[in-house]
C-alpha cells in the first residue's frame, strides 16, 4: 500500500493534470477529447477544489500527527495517568494502540475488535487472516499488535484501567502468592464485587494488603480472572 507521501504525490499529479486540462484544453487532442465531456468551468472547479482539498487534508493530518506525537511523548513521561485513559473507541491507550489505529481501524472500526476475547494464539490467527486479506504489517508490528490485543482483549476481560491493573499485579505477586499459589486464583472467575469480597476476606485472614493497594489488586483480579 502507498504511504501518505506517495498518495499525496499521486493526488498532486492528478491536480497538475487538472490544471493542464484548463490550460492545454485546445492544444492536445487526447486531453482535448478527455476534457470535452466537461465544460471549462467544471474542469477549473475540479482542479481548484482538488488542490485546495489536498492542502486542507494535509494540514489537518499534520496537525493530528503533531498532536499525537505530543500525546505519545506525554505518555512515556507520565505513563500511569495517560495509560489509564482510553479514547471513545474502547481502545485502551497503551503500547501497540498506534498499530491498531494505523493498520486496523482503517477498514473497520474498533467495535469489531473490542467485543472479542481471544488468547494470544487466537489473536495471532486473526492477525494472520487480516494480513492475508491485505493488511501490511511488519513482524515487529505483528508481535506488538498480538501483545496489545491479548492484553486488553484476552480470554478474560481486561480491566479498563491498565496502569492500575499493572500496579495490582505487583501486589498480587508480592502479597497473595506468599501464602498460596496462583492456581487458587486462576480457577476462579469473579465479578468486581466478587473479587472485592475475596480480597476483603483475605485481608481479614491476614493478607498484608493496604487500603491503597486494594483497588489496584481488585482491578488486576477482575481483569485477569473476571467473568466474561
Amino acid at each position: 500500500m502507498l504511504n501518505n507521501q506517495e498518495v499525496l504525490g499521486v493526488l498532486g499529479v492528478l491536480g497538475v493534470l487538472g490544471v493542464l486540462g484548463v490550460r492545454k484544453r485546445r492544444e492536445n487532442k487526447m486531453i482535448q477529447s478527455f476534457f470535452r465531456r466537461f465544460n471549462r468551468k467544471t474542469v477549473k472547479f475540479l482542479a481548484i477544489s482538488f488542490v485546495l482539498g489536498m492542502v486542507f487534508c494535509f494540514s489537518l493530518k499534520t496537525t493530528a500527527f503533531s498532536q499525537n506525537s505530543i500525546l505519545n511523548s506525554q505518555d512515556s513521561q507520565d505513563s500511569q495517568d495517560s495509560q489509564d485513559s482510553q479514547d471513545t473507541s474502547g481502545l485502551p491507550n497503551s503500547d501497540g494502540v498506534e498499530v491498531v489505529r494505523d493498520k486496523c481501524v482503517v477498514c473497520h472500526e474498533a467495535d469489531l475488535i473490542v467485543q472479542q476475547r481471544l488468547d494470544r494464539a487466537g489473536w495471532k490467527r486473526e492477525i494472520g487472516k487480516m494480513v492475508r486479506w491485505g493488511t501490511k504489517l511488519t513482524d515487529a508490528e505483528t508481535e506488538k499488535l498480538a501483545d496489545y490485543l491479548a492484553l486488553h482483549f484476552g480470554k478474560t476481560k481486561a480491566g479498563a484501567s491498565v496502569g492500575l491493573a499493572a500496579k495490582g499485579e505487583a501486589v498480587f505477586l508480592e502479597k497473595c502468592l506468599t501464602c498460596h499459589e496462583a492456581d487458587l486464583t486462576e480457577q476462579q472467575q469473579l465479578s468486581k464485587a466478587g473479587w472485592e469480597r475475596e480480597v476483603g476476606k483475605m485481608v481479614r485472614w491476614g493478607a498484608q494488603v493496604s487500603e491503597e493497594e486494594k483497588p489496584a489488586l481488585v482491578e488486576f483480579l477482575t481483569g485477569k480472572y473476571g467473568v466474561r
Partner: protein
Amino acid sequence: MSTRKQDSAGVSRRSFLTGALKLGATFGISQFLPEFALPVLGETIPGKEKLLVRSVRPTDLETPVELLNSFITPIDLFYVRSHLYTPEVELEDWSLSVGGMVGTPLSLKLDDLKKLPRKTVTVTLECAGNGRAFFDPPVAGIQWGKGAVGTARWTGVSLADVLKKAGLKSGVKYITANGADRPMGKVPDMVRNVPLEKALHPDTVLAWEMNGQPIPALHGFPLRLIVPGWEAAYSVKWLIDLQAADAEYDGFFVKTAYRFPKKPVAPGTILDPKDTAPLLGLVVKSIITTPKHGLKVKVGEKVMVSGFAWAGESDIVKVDVSTDRGSTWRPARLGKEHERYAWRQFFYEWTAPESGSHTILSRATDDKGRTQPVTAQWNQSGYLWNVIDQVRINAE
C-alpha cells in the same frame, strides 16, 4: 440551454466526487480524513435505531430479543449481517448475469424477472454465528448474542425458473452466487454456492421484496437469493451473478468459513478445513423473548412467557418450558401462524409461586425428533449455538 449546462456540470461533479471517494478508498485515504469525517462510534444506523450495533462498518446489527414479539419481524427490527461494506446499487445500472455451465447465458433486469411466475416464501433467517458470544473458550468474530435471527416474507421468483431459462448443462453440481458488495484490499469476496438440489427446489427464490416492500439496501437491494431453512449466509445479498459450476467455489466463504467439524472436538481445538464440512440447514432452537431477562415481577402475578422456535427445513412439533431449572417440563402452546421455513411462536402462562429468583427454560423439538442440547458443541467459528434457552426473573 443554460439549465442543461448546469445539470451536466452537476452530474460531472457528482460522478467526479464518487470517483474520488472510490479512488480514495483504493489508496487507503481514510487515514487522510480528519476525525470528523469518519463514522462516529455509538452512532445508530438510520432505520435501525433500536438495534445493537456490533460493527459500524461493515454493518452488523443485532436485534435485542425482547423486541421480537411478532411472527413477521418488521424491517426496522430485522438484524443485519454484512461481511463487506454495503454497496450502493442503482437499479438502472443493475442486472443479474447467469453464466457458467448453461446453454444460454443471461443478463436480466428486474423487469425481466418480474415477467416470471411470482413466488413468496416466509423464511426465518438466522446467522450461523448467532450465539457465538456464549462459546467458551471464546471464539473470534462478531460476538452475536441471541438476536441474529428474524422472519420475513420474501417475494420474487423461483431460482429454478431462472436456471431453466438459461438451460443447465449436464454435470452442474453447484450454483455459485455473488453480490455487488466488493472487498477492500485482499479480503476475499463474499461468494457462496448452493448445491444443485437445493438450488432447484421451487422454494429457493430470487427475491426483490421483503415484507411487501423493495428489499432495503442493508438487506440486499435490489435482489437477494433466499435459501429457506439454511444458515443465512446462503441467502446472498445484492445479487448480481449466478454461475452454474461442476465443483465447489474455491473461495474463503466456501472453503474455510461456514463449515463445522465433521466430528465433535474438544473445546479450543483448531481444525484444518478438510476436517470440516459445509453448514447446511439450521438446527433446532428456541429463544425466550418475553419476559426480558432480569425482569422483576410480583408474586402471584401472571406472566406470559413467549418466544420463538425454529429448526431450519424441519417442522417444530413442540416447545417445552421448565420453571424449576429443568427438573420438570410442560408443553407450551404453539402460535397459529405456521409456515414451512418459519419459526413458531410459543406461549406459556406462568405465575411466580414465591419470591426470589426464578429461571425459565425453553426446549424445542422438531419432527425429526431432534431437540435442543444442554451443552453446545464447541467449534472454532462459533456456529450453531442452540442450547436450551433460559431467562431469569426476580419475583418480589
